[in-house]
């Protein structure tokens, strides 16, 4: 299973399991990153981190170590 930080710019996926139970976990959920959400990687910042994704129709920036909590499945 790949995690979100392993996707390349332009790749899409469906959010699978979301690890953790702390504040990052809850914030991701509130921002629309939860099981079943469609997600697309837009780009990585010039220094390689953080990354920009599109979810729920808007753009969200998150760090790679946070993206590593998000398992991503192939778009069917």
């Amino acid at each position, binding site marked *: 299973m790949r995690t979100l930080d392993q996707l390349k710019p332009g790749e899409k996926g469906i959010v699978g399991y*979301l690890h953790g*139970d*702390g*504040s*990052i*976990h*809850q*914030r*991701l*959920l*509130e*921002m*629309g990153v*939860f*099981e079943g959400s469609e997600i697309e990687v*837009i*780009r990585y*910042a*010039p*220094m*390689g*981190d*953080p990354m*920009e994704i599109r979810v*729920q*129709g*808007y*753009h*969200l*920036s*998150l*760090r790679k170590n*946070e993206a590593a909590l998000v398992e991503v499945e192939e778009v069917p």
Partner: protein
Amino acid sequence: MIKTIALVGNPNVGKTTLFNALTGLSHVTGNYPGVTVERKAGKVQLNGKTVEIVDLPGTYSLAARSPDEMIVTDLLLGNLSSERPIDAVVSVVDATNIERNLYLVSQLRELGKPLVIALNMTDIAESHGIQVSPEKIACEIGVPVVPVSAHKNVGVERLKEVLSRLTRESADAVTPVPTYPEAFNREVDALTAHLVTHSTKLGRKVPRAEAFRVLVDKGGYAETRLAKALANGFMDDLSRRRERANTNGSLASLEARSRYTWIRKIVAAGVTRPETRVITWSDRVDHYVTHKVYGTIIFVAVMAVVFQAIFSWAAPLMQLISDGFTALGGLINASMPDGMLRSLLADGVIAGFGSVVTFIPQILILSLFIALLEDCGYMSRAAFLMDKLLSKCGLSGQSFIPLLSSFACAIPGILATRTISNRRDRFTTMLVAPLMSCSARLPIYTMMIAAFIPGTHVLGGLVGLQGLTLFFMYLLGITVAVPTAWLLKKTLLKGETPPFLLELPTYKWPQPRTVAIKVYTQGREFLLRAGTLIFSIAVRDAIVASVSDTADRDAQLGALAKEESGAYLRNSIIGHLGQAVAPVVRPLGWDWRIGMAALASFPAREVVVATLGTIFNLGSDVDETSQGLRATLRDATTPTGGKLFTIPVALSIMVFFALCSQCGSTLAILKRETGKWRWPLFVFGYLTTLAYLVSFAVFHITTAVGWGSV
């Protein structure tokens, strides 16, 4: 009857623009007690009755992780005794981004208060091919939905009309949606009932919506606060309740799934989207602005303009203001008889007011840039680009602009930290901001360098030694700030790494009205808040000084001539104090005169040049370009006849001033922004210690390598 209305919404949805459109310029700002959250309220006329509108900080959710975030939740729940209870809620929703916006709406829907949705940016949504039907959404959610275009003032009257018809009873028709599993609802009810039994101990009745947050937000602030108040067995009991409430994954994920299920139903009924997503101009702009090469170039260019503006565009204005106040002080000195009243007016009122007003050009220019960058959406891109760099010292990309601004002046820099969402990051940034070499340090650098650093070239004649020294002074602050910030985040301000989940909003043209109001309020607030503090300090100093002056009247009268004023100094209180200071500063290579100059420059470090002039017999009308002062300093000798100022001594002085916090205004602003005296005291303590130790090291190392005899 509705008396107080709260304006709630996600960040970047045009909430402030709507607030301004509703209230005009009538709003007042302040702080909520005990936290660093700005309170903004204004008045609006509804059917001839005055109603207060409170603009709450932008938030994505009512699940609070810190006291600052809890303000919104507490205010809506009526938990703040200092605030009037909220009678109705207006939720501002961005039509281009409706799913995520409705998440907060679903939480507001459960508060049992009358709710109105102000649907903003429908015009932009339409340009993206997204059709949102306010009627259908209103029907699905069961609350009024008013389409507005806040920046064009469209729909604002209609919103007022809807609000004027609201009554507290409007909420009765509201049924709680979305739906949760039976077991979960039961546990929220049970916890609510359990907490009611503790009402006397807590001093208040915990509402159901708060019990909901306590149950769901593991490690959240609602839980922490109750655990502290109730202590024994509360946490064990809570974790048992959490286990009973949900069997599948975390409660946070149960909440999110339930809410987004509800949201999907509304969106399916009220929103139509094009088959393929329209590539917006914002997407195209972002392709360049966050691009590896172009993005970096644009970023450097933007920062250069901002920096240049606060550093040099403001300078002539500041000079003009400062000259004006000096002239005014001179006028008073010339036209009034000598005495305490004159001293109070000239040295206290005029000089104090002048020292505050001088900062206004910098504050206004920086506020203007920050307002523009924030309003168009670039601020979050800057944070995106710089995050990696700042994450190395435990901060986030949001700290970059405040720190950069501090190179001009720490005061606008500290004010700019308000855009940092995490409190611990914000505090860390404020505490290291004074380390950035501000423009007030330049006079002491340039004077010392011109007098004592040889004008030779190094590195094959490419780099001038004087320029290099100046560069190192700037570098020193940054070099010290990195480990300091890292250390602060590991010790005093330690805690869980905050999530760096930053929305990158759609670019839009800045709204002149919003920008103008922001700049105006920042300027006004600076004058009122920092002004009163700095002003009172200046007046107090003037009184103290004039009292001691009167005591020394005879001595003073005999020392009117400038040459004699030096002699007077040596025999005066300052002179005696100097003898006490001497042993303290001797390890830095300084004599008592330098020590006194450093001590006397506490309120504002730029006065050290003038103080050195006075002490070394020149009168105080010298500045860093004075040939006379340079020559005098070069010729100054130690009691044993050797040269007082050697390169190690000059370096030691510069390094001390690069690191110390000889700035009363910065400390006053720190008190204002953190709400407590202990933070400015801490800053003063750690910076002075640091300055002393590094100067000591620099003096002894450079002496050891033989620079003392160059």
